[in-house]
């Protein structure tokens, strides 16, 4: 009996620690949400007010007095266009790597992975000069293109794993029926890898949505995305906490929804397919 009770104590202890850990994780985003529905007087009071009249005015005002809608649209355009391109090109290459073994194919695949590791700071100066020469600075296009450096290698590695999971026999029979390799890819492999494709697309979208450094340097006024727009609420005269927290909360909503949808593949995605 004694051993059972120590086990019970231990389990209780584990549960308590777990609760503390999750409170620690969830508390900071909760503060963001809380501040976003406070009036300025309540937000700036110390000690922080736990009971107050919630207001939606911050959420209304960022759309009325700042171009937050345009930031959202820009982010949406950049992230979705980039995701289409990354997943399109990436799954082609991934299929190539998964199905055609050739001399140096492993090295080439790892080279592609290593391009993702390069620091954005290292390429940002040339990229700025190139985009300026091409006259596409401060347009969504320059971000669509440059986010391929993040998402294309990612898509290749994710999709490579999913294609490798498809049994080859299915494709072999189609090949024997004299379908071209490309047709086999399009009609058989791609539909079979559809869940993986969706997860890859979702994660690519989130990575584009979250990116800040390139967007900060390459956009100025017209193509400003949400993170850069939110930074604009830090004025010389002071921080517009209401706008910042409301904008931050709005920007996080799609991220959290998409994360929940793709959670089965997240570990794989964030470790470049090294772990499932």
């Amino acid at each position, binding site marked *: 009996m004694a051993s059972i009770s120590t086990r019970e104590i231990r389990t209780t202890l584990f549960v308590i620690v777990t609760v503390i850990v999750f409170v620690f994780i969830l508390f900071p985003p909760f503060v963001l949400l809380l501040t976003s529905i406070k009036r300025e007087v309540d937000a700036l009071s110390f000690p922080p007010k736990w009971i107050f009249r919630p207001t939606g005015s911050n959420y209304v005002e960022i759309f009325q007095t700042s171009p937050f809608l345009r930031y959202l649209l820009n982010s949406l355009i950049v992230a979705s266009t980039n995701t289409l391109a990354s997943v399109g090109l990436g799954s082609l290459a991934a299929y190539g790597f998964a199905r055609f073994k050739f001399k140096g194919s492993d090295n080439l695949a790892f080279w592609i992975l290593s391009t993702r590791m390069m620091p954005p700071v290292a390429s940002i100066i040339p990229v700025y000069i190139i985009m300026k020469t091409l006259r596409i600075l401060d347009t969504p296009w320059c971000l669509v293109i440059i986010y391929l450096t993040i998402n*294309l290698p990612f898509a290749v590695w994710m999709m490579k794993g999913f294609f490798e999971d498809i049994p080859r026999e299915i494709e072999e029979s189609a090949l024997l029926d004299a379908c071209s390799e490309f047709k086999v890819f399009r009609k058989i492999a791609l539909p079979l890898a559809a869940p993986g494709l969706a997860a890859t697309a979702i994660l690519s979208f989130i990575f584009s949505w979250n990116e800040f450094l390139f967007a900060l340097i390459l956009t100025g006024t017209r193509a400003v995305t949400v993170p850069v727009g939110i930074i604009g609420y830090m004025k010389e005269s002071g921080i517009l906490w209401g706008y910042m927290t409301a904008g931050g909360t709005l920007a*996080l909503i799609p991220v959290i929804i998409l994360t929940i949808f793709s959670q089965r593949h997240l570990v794989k995605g964030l470790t470049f397919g090294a772990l*499932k």
Partner: protein
Amino acid sequence: MVPLALVYHSDLEKNRVGEPVFIGFLRRRRTLLLFIAPTVGVLLAIVIFPLFFSLALSFFDWNVIQAEPWSWVGLGNYSTILFQDPYFRTSLTVTVLYLLGTVPLQLVLGLIVALILNRIGQKIINSLRTILVIPAMMTPLIVGIIWRLMYNPDMGMLNYFLSLLHLHPIIWTGMPATALPSVMIADIWEWTPFIALILLAGLQAIPVEPLEGARVDGASGWQTLRFVVLPLLSPVILVAVLIRLMDSFKTFDLIFVLTQGGPGMRTEILNYYTYRNGFKFFHMGYASALSWLLVIILNVISMILGRTLRSRGLYAAGR
């Protein structure tokens, strides 16, 4: 009989009569080219070309503001960085402190959380898994904003908790002593749950037999952890550490929002120092040289990561 391997039409074709060998090779490989070449081409254009562009820039002295033409300085920028620039040394120290203060702590805390969750039961884990990954998926810039809110000396939650404990308020990100630890805490908050998630996945993939064996042999909980679980988990730990190490070198958003590298240079890691040289001081050549030092460091880590992934143990286990 064809064995269990795909036979492609292209492999069966031979060089046509009178066709150069290389052209024949390309024609037979056209499918492969169709699949892989677009990606390789795009990456050459948007990753490799800019990198070599910046390598070229690093041999010049070019300040955009002074509107002077580029002047060739050879390895001058590099020798200045390595032998004369005291700020570089400060920044290097800050970088090392930052890495040492975040990655090992994230690993230890993540391991503890993973071990506890592993004991608690599958049902609970499944519902908590999403929460564990949320800080890592959140927009890093907004993570910075959240922590700036928490650290705010006048109305922030942290000083509120200090006041509840009758402690003096702290100017978290504004004082030399606490600025770097403040950024580190935000980083630890952002990434520890993710490390825990990875390690939890690793723990759950450990086969039952060795654990049973250890129990039968009368090993204590600690001995089982030390001699059975950790060795089996080591490839996963290595991947987690390498990925985190690379990301830590590239930390930008958090520092941008929380401290802008200050006070003084207390939080100015190499990545941020490079950014400031390029886009605050407009020393483009100098910043390029700095960034190439970063490229070299990150390349070394990514080669080690590549080798780890390739070594049979992990890469095979991952699939």
